[in-house]
């Protein structure tokens, strides 16, 4: 494997793993406040899945030459990145519905494209993860439908979530890909950011419109002539600020993860000290 490929794949998969682990936190804060027992169970299961994805992906990344301990240490100390959307607060139950439907929807658009990636262990992990993300999407869709078909306050709650989360969702796909994107060159990624964002528009914007939910981008429209969506470029400065560790919840979320990492060091030590492990 060329070293340049190994390094690019490692960085990409590590960031993906970090995002799964950090992505559990915004929704995790709503488990104690879920409106019904059914919702509490399903949200707990979803959060468990996301952390499980992190575990699976760290295992894949480890084989590319960096230990899980080092990756987690880098994450909790702010030396590596995680997806921009997980730097924001989940303020209401409407945000939980938004994350489940549209953040998971955006993630699924990205992740399905990775099923054709060039690194087979990563593809195998994605074959495991995509069906679960598809399940999460159903869960989010159900939450969203409950709100938009409910009272005026419930509809407003979901609309408010859309208004606050739309720009971070545009950021989620990243800036337009460079002419020579090394990840695409190596086949670690198979499609450009713009192609994925366009697929997201086509899949989800009509659904929102069908439910009377507006999108806070006055320019967003399907352009039949060129066969793609016109849209407004978001504030990319904010995107870079956030992913460099200056998001509204970055320090709180990293502190949460770091506290658990530090206080549970004894568990890792016990595992490593077991006779079988010592013999490995």
């Amino acid at each position: 494997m060329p070293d340049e490929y190994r390094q690019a794949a490692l960085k990409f998969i590590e960031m993906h793993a970090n995002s799964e682990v950090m992505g559990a936190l915004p929704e995790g804060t709503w488990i104690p406040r879920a409106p019904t027992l059914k919702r509490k169970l399903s949200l707990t299961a979803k959060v468990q899945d996301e952390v499980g994805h992190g575990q699976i992906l760290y295992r894949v990344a480890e084989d590319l030459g960096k230990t899980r301990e080092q990756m987690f240490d880098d994450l909790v100390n702010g030396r590596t990145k995680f997806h921009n959307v997980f730097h924001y607060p989940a303020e209401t139950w409407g945000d939980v519905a938004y994350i489940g439907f549209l953040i998971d929807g955006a993630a699924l658009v990205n992740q399905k494209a990775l099923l054709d990636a060039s690194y087979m262990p990563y593809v195998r992990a994605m074959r495991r993860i995509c069906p679960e993300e598809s399940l999460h999407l159903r869960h989010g869709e159900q939450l969203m439908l409950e709100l938009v078909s409910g009272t005026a306050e419930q509809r407003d709650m979901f609309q408010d979530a859309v208004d606050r989360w739309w720009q971070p969702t545009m950021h989620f796909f990243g800036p337009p890909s460079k002419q020579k994107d090394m990840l695409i060159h190596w086949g670690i990624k198979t499609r450009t950011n713009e192609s994925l964002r366009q697929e997201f528009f086509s899949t989800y914007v009509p659904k929102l419109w069908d439910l009377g939910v507006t999108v806070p981008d006055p320019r967003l429209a399907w352009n039949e002539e060129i066969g793609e969506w016109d849209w407004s470029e978001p504030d990319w400065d904010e995107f870079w600020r956030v992913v460099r560790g200056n998001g509204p919840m970055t320090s709180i979320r990293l502190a949460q993860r770091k506290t658990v990492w530090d206080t549970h060091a004894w568990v890792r030590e016990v595992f490593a000290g077991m006779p079988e492990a010592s013999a490995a």
Partner: protein
Amino acid sequence: MQVAIWEVLGKRTEEDQFAVVGGLKAPDAEMALLLARETHFRHKEGVAYAVRRRGEPEVHAGTWPAEVLGGVTDRSYRRQEGYVGVGATMKRVHRQLAAKGLVIDRPRPPAGRTRSAEAERADA
């Protein structure tokens, strides 16, 4: 810290051969099987599971039979079957909101099309 690496193997149906579905780290086979069950088979993804320590031929088969793999209590919220009818609900809610004049009717791509082939080519 050195903890052994294990490959996780699974069979989707009884007729299938065991295939590698992932990997994990665990200090021994017992813990590897427990983690494999929790990380790879809790959504009823298969009928049999096993682990194999990397670099070793011995396969350690999981002892949970197919009918209990993934749990026996009602955890349908962990599986697609727990969300049957969401698509129909979407259509029903759309009709209700349309009747109230709340839906937004704007041009959109033809069904099943996300972007023109020309735009995809230009972007690539």
